[in-house]
């Protein structure tokens, strides 16, 4: 957690300072250096054997200077003083200023005041043999669940990332960010009918997380259960109907329907369907939604964002009223709004953008069973694949991977996956009931924006949406 980690990169503090100084030209109002070293490992299994193992090592620095709305950015996988200077000169280009004419304030050394994921390296990076053993047991557990399970694919991925951020506004701070994920996919076959089921989880956790409470076996059984269930799924209905979303991962609704639309960059540029809606009602009064990067060990959590700002908990929607955006330094400064610690980047090769961390709706007061009982004819969606949103017109989709019909207040037949489509600024006004059973997802989410992927979390209590379009095949 010490910026002494800078020595990991073979760069001295004074060299970092010199590079920042090179960026200190007239018109440049902010500059930063982002040093990153990342070791990613993966083992994967299929057809009952762990046949693949891979490891990737990358290290580099991203250099950025901003002048008004302009950003100059360069990166290098070489970390010599000369490379830093070259990158700084490129980043500085945007200010149209040929050479340095000032000095940035000397960064004050700081360390994060907390550690949300105190995982020792040895606990994250266990021997390959241990990972292989885990995957073998998963294969056996999934096949044991039902003989109709014909193939099991499982993968275990870990990433161990060390970052140091040096900024012209006086921050020099480092973080160590472990991350792992275990994913299981099963194929079930019966006659000519083949179906798929998936389950997984993870977070900023040690390897023991997966063994604790036999989580890895739960993942295997859940993936198998979904595949077997889908063997008997009927075609999904098409048209507008009430939909009950189960808690946890279906929170992807919030991520797509409102989360992206509240990222500050789109709102500064006034390209979001939410651009002029601060203080306005965008949800029913049972909805309160936050983005919280401070939950211990969660996949979307960070001690600090990639600009060195401590993450926080930002209220996006309070009892239905739109309260705020999530911001990075550039957009907070240009919009004159609070900095929320949401400046994130995929790696040193990417620019910082305002991004979500863990986005979820707070628990309400309804009994989940009452919520289902209140629906005469509709859909109960338990698990989803991915989703997408068009920020500008607000239209979003997300696709169910496990869903059931609700008939006369009872959950009945499983239906094939269907895509749900709606309008972001409108959909939450149709939420009439919120359960008391808030659940966060298991740690599998990856969010894509501008070609950059970052790990995120979502969460949701059971909710009822009075009407949304379901894209099935049956009228």
């Amino acid at each position, binding site marked *: 957690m010490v910026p002494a980690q800078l020595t990991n990169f073979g760069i001295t503090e004074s060299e970092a300072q010199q590079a920042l100084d090179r960026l200190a030209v007239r018109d440049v109002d902010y500059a930063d250096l982002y040093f990153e070293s990342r070791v990613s490992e993966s083992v994967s299994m299929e057809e009952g054997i762990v*046949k*693949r193992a891979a*490891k990737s090592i990358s290290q580099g620095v991203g250099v950025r200077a901003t002048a008004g709305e302009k950003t100059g950015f360069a990166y290098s996988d070489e970390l010599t003083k000369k490379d830093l200077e070259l990158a700084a000169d490129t980043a500085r280009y945007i200010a149209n200023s040929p050479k340095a004419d000032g000095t940035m304030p000397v960064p004050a050394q700081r360390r994060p005041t907390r550690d949300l994921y105190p995982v020792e390296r040895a606990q994250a990076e266990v021997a390959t043999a241990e990972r292989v053993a885990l995957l073998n047991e998963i294969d056996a557990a999934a096949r044991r669940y039902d003989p109709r399970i014909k193939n099991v694919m499982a993968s275990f991925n870990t990433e161990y990332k060390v970052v140091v951020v040096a900024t012209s506004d006086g921050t020099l701070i480092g973080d160590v960010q472990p991350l792992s994920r275990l994913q299981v996919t099963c194929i079930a076959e019966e006659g000519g009918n083949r179906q798929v089921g998936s389950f997984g989880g993870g977070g900023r956790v040690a390897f023991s997380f997966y063994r604790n409470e036999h989580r890895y076996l739960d993942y295997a059984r859940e993936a198998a259960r979904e595949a077997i269930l889908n063997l008997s799924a009927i075609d*999904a209905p098409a048209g507008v109907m009430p939909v009950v979303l189960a808690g946890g991962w279906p929170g992807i609704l919030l991520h797509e329907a409102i989360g992206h639309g509240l990222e500050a960059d789109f709102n500064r540029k006034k390209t979001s369907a939410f651009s002029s809606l601060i203080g306005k009602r965008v949800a029913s009064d049972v909805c309160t939604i936050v983005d919280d990067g401070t939950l211990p060990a969660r996949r979307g959590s960070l001690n600090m964002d990639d600009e060195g700002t401590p993450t926080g908990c930002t209220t996006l929607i309070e009892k239905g009223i739109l309260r705020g955006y999530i911001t990075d330094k550039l957009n907070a400064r240009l919009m004159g709004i609070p900095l929320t610690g949401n400046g994130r980047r995929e790696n040193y090769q990417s620019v910082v953008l305002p991004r979500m961390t863990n986005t979820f709706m707070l628990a309400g007061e309804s009994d989940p069973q009452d919520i289902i009982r209140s629906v005469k004819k509709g859909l109960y969606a338990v698990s989803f694949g991915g989703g997408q949103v068009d920020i*500008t017109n607000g*239209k979003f989709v997300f696709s169910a991977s496990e869903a059931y019909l609700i008939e006369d207040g009872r959950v009945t037949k499983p239906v094939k996956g269907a*895509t749900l*489509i709606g309008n972001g600024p409108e959909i939450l006004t149709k939420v009439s009931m919120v359960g008391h059973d808030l659940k966060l997802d298991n740690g599998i989410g990856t969010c894509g924006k501008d070609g950059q992927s970052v790990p995120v979390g979502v969460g949701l209590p059971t909710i009822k949406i009075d009407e949304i379009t*379901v894209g*099935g095949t049956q009228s």
Partner: protein
Amino acid sequence: MLQQQQAECPVDTAHSGYAQLAADVLAMAKRAGATAADIVVADGDTFSVQVRVGAVDRLTKAREKRLGLRLFAGHRSATTSTSDFSRASLEHLVAETYALAKAVVEDPVSGLPDPSQMAPDRPDLDLHDETTLDAESQIDWAKRGEAAALTADPRITNSEGAEFDSSSGRVVLANSHGFIGEYRSSSFSLSVSPIATEPETGAMQRDAWYEVQRKFHKLSSAESIGREAARRTLRRLGARKTTTQRVPVVFDQETAGSLLSNLCSAVSGYGLYKRASFLLDQLGHTIASDLITVFDDGRMAGGLGSRPFDGEGLATRKNTIVERGVLKSYLLDTYSGKKLGLASTGNASRSVGESPSVGPTNFYLVPGTKSSEDIIGTVKSGLYVTELIGFGINMVTGDYSRGACGFWIENGELTYPVEEITIAGNLKQMFKDIELVGSDLVFRGRIASPTVKVAEMMVAGN
């Protein structure tokens, strides 16, 4: 052996110094105990300019390099990658890769291709352009593209910007059979993303247009790209939902291309041997209407998916995937081919640091004779789809349900724009239900299709 192969290579491999590097790492692997190995080295320069509402928003400049090693210890293998080319670091990488390989389970199918299969030739596929553009020219291109969109109509009120990217790179592949190959490629692209506002309601719409070329001089004018972006955005104003009903659906070139990429995934060897494709056991069977013929051609001159050899060093070629509706070939590399009892089709795709997978080269649907207007003209009441969103495709079953935008067709004419609807069906049936194929094939990426009409799908809206 290495020397000989190098002499046949039209590109000056020695120039990059990577040939020596590859030879050194192969030697290290052999000393470490590897029975076979292959190495990919890739480097590249990219320069990207984004402008927004007439001003520079972001400049990005980068130079990268990476080395990927796949090492075999008998029938066990592991893959690693690094950007650190120092000798000490590479020695360490080789040792770690060997240890990783020893930790996984033996897979009798794994291994390099047979030495006799290595590509004998290195055709020049015209993939590289020496043009380098300075910041001012790239900024000018992006500004002109965006300006053309912003001035096209007063209802174009804002912009997500315009981006001009140029990149140039090199790939070197070498293996312990003595194969070494190298090629260079470049790309130049402009994209423009305007936003239009409906004067009455204030509702916004965005769309975009882009072009990518390997040669700078082949790019259309910035103005024409900007104007097309504006046209596509403006036509979406006033979009509304339509009612839930079963109707014919016409896919434009872009969205038909997405259907073709679904087909491409379904014929990929990896999905097939894992029994995770809806086209399992269909080789030689009719999987589409007899209007459908699909090629994958790795050697189209200047093609965005062209390469002289694949990710394992096999010669690329033109494969017939579907011929008049009959599935003729899968896309295979050595491993997935062996799993299915078939030979590689030269479609190994290799990203540095991963073991080979299968990928298309230039994968396209052979055009028919009708214009898109003629095709729309055959629809009494139906949907013309211009954008699809979301991930509602189940590759195992073919079940298909995606968000869509487009236009409602009445009596053969486009009437009003539609949005917030889904289209659903099953890919197995949809390919069989293609009743018309357009004449308008244009390569804008590595997968391309002309306009197609599917007889009937479920549209869900109000």
